[in-house]
């Protein structure tokens, strides 16, 4: 049992009737047993084989969360192919930009097949360049399950543990050109280790609304529960964002024990659920509510606890995790055996001296939420700018080493080489170690994280730069943490010659529209400034962090 398809088939053989996933769709609930899951996957494996898709080739899945996505994901694996889930087109994203993103993905990833809905076929065909790698477009509606006994051969069962089993991309043009390639072995090493840390067993029930194209949703909210035979209760992110109470209702109805949430979801649930939607809800079965994938705030935990304690939420269920796709998922985990450590440090020292000094009562204090101890298979080091290891409580770049690291960025040896230093993966995150626990303080890389989703600022800058009246290349995008929402606000500052207020408003509107329709990110603030406002680096590039500082300083004065 050392590859994913082998484990899935073992579950089918040993527990065909067991419910692997309860799919919540609209008001309905579809129980998907291992038999139904594997029969559905067999249908996709057969269709991929018939289309001439060979083991080791990439299959891109453009599907909404649901049964077709689950079946095609595991179906690709049974065929020995490498599935990669692409974010789905939302109503506000312009087809033109979606095509551009898809073309960017195809160019680097070179998939052999794409699976989508019939109504999407035109869009997908339009995005495929003439001489591309794509040989087949499979439509979900034409693919029926194949009952066992009629299954085709599954070449995926003969894959070696070291071979790539899946690709994971983040969104946007930049993210889609940087697929994290993970081997069967890496995924299983992570699952074995992480499941041990959180004590996950088949008795657990995971409730999740997370998108499956993101590591937290894909691993913790999908692959891990299915392979471990824990029950998964899965709802769509599109539904959750309109009705966050449904996650809590699902946890209550199914006696959910585990859930993973990005920090903003704590604030979102705490402030946007009416009492009447919580009538009869009992959250006492949740043994861990795990905060992961964006900066974690003590205040978010407190708001969540205060709101849901009357509904049975246990204070000891609050947990934290530091994770990334490049380590399959978890790097460290806190709050399982003991409450999450809160490290009270001097604010000034943290910012000025890059040192996390325990607070002694003078000056401002920041309560840092621990991300817990590294999981047993993963080592963590803090490095200075010269990549020398720093002692405890010094802030530097977090580097990791484990037996579950990425095989590389798919077809991007250049990026893979840059990401490692002497075998250690450089995360681009800043933090410190104290008492053996990991604390995340910020980010070295230019990345914006909104609602747990990674966004590359260069994608937003390119879109904003196309607005009329904006000087090309004179745009900067960055994130600013918003304590009220518990996540970052995406901000764009653009230079324009136009000094008239009304005209500037118009430019700002166009920037908002272009960014939303081109990236699925809603900008919170757009600031139009005059020429020469933006700061450049010595090499002439727009300096994102310096401009962020300048923007914050100006806002503070207003």
């Amino acid at each position, binding site marked *: 049992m050392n590859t994913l398809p082998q484990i899935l088939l073992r579950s089918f053989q040993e527990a065909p009737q067991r419910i692997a996933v309860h799919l919540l769709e609209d008001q309905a609930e579809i129980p998907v047993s291992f038999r139904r899951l594997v029969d559905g996957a067999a249908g996709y494996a057969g269709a991929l084989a018939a289309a001439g898709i060979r083991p080791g080739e990439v299959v891109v899945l453009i599907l909404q969360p649901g049964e077709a996505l689950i079946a095609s994901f595991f179906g690709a694996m049974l065929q020995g192919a490498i599935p990669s889930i692409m974010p789905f087109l939302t109503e*506000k994203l312009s087809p033109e930009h979606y095509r551009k993103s898809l073309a960017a993905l195809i160019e680097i990833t070179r998939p052999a097949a794409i699976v989508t809905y019939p109504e999407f076929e035109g869009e997908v065909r339009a995005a495929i360049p003439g001489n591309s790698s794509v040989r087949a477009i499979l439509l979900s509606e034409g693919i029926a399950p194949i009952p066992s006994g009629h299954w085709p051969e599954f070449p995926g069962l003969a894959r070696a543990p070291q071979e790539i089993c899946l690709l994971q991309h983040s969104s946007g043009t930049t993210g889609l050109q940087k697929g994290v390639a993970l081997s069967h072995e890496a995924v299983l090493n992570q699952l074995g280790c992480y499941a041990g840390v959180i004590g996950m067993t088949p008795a657990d029930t995971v409730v999740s609304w997370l998108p499956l194209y993101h590591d937290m949703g894909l691993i913790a909210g999908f692959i891990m529960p299915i392979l471990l035979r824990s029950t998964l209760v899965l709802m769509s992110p599109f539904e959750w964002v309109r*009705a966050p109470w449904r996650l809590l209702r699902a946890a209550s109805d199914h006696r959910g024990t585990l859930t993973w949430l990005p920090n903003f979801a704590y604030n979102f649930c705490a402030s946007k659920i009416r009492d009447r939607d919580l009538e009869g809800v009992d959250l006492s079965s949740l043994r861990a509510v795990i905060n992961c994938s964006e900066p974690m705030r003590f205040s978010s935990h407190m708001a969540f606890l205060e709101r849901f304690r009357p509904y049975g939420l246990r204070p000891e269920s609050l947990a934290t995790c530091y994770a990334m796709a490049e380590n399959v998922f978890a790097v460290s985990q806190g709050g399982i055996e003991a409450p999450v450590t809160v490290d009270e440090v001097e604010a000034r020292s943290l910012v000025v001296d890059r040192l996390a000094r325990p607070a002694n009562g003078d000056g401002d204090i920041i309560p840092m939420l621990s991300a817990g101890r590294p999981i047993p298979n993963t080592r963590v080091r803090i490095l200075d700018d010269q990549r020398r290891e720093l002692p405890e409580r010094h802030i530097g770049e977090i580097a990791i080493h484990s037996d579950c690291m990425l095989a590389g960025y798919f077809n991007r040896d250049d990026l893979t080489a840059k990401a490692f230093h002497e075998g250690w993966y450089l995360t681009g995150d800043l933090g410190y170690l104290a008492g053996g626990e990991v604390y995340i303080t910020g980010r070295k890389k230019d990345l914006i994280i909104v609602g747990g989703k990674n966004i590359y600022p260069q994608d937003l800058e390119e879109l904003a730069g196309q607005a009329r009246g904006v000087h090309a290349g004179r745009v900067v995008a960055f994130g600013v943490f918003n304590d009220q929402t518990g996540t970052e606000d995406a901000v764009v500052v653009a230079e324009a010659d136009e000094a008239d207020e009304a005209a500037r408003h118009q430019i700002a509107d166009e920037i*908002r529209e272009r960014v939303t329709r081109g990236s699925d990110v809603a900008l*919170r603030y757009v600031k139009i400034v005059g020429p020469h406002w933006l700061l450049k680096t010595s090499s002439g590039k727009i300096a994102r962090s310096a401009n962020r500082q300048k923007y914050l300083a100006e806002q503070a004065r207003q």
Partner: protein
Amino acid sequence: MSDDITASLGRYIAAEILKDPARQLAVDEPLISSGLVDSFSLVDLALHVESAFGVRIDDTELTAQVFDSLGELASLVRSRLPAAS
């Protein structure tokens, strides 16, 4: 009355969702399909409508198919207000 609803909703969206109180919204300007109002703000809008006007918008109605502009939202609110005496 109807103009009050439109104006009040317009002020709320400009100030609280777009963070730009000076922003004037046209009654027929697309809000959801254009991405001006992002999905995270839709619940806010529903909660605001409920507390400001005492009418309910169901979660399933928070889509561009049901309302996409200030005018459409105001009509939806108006249609649910108790008949004026």
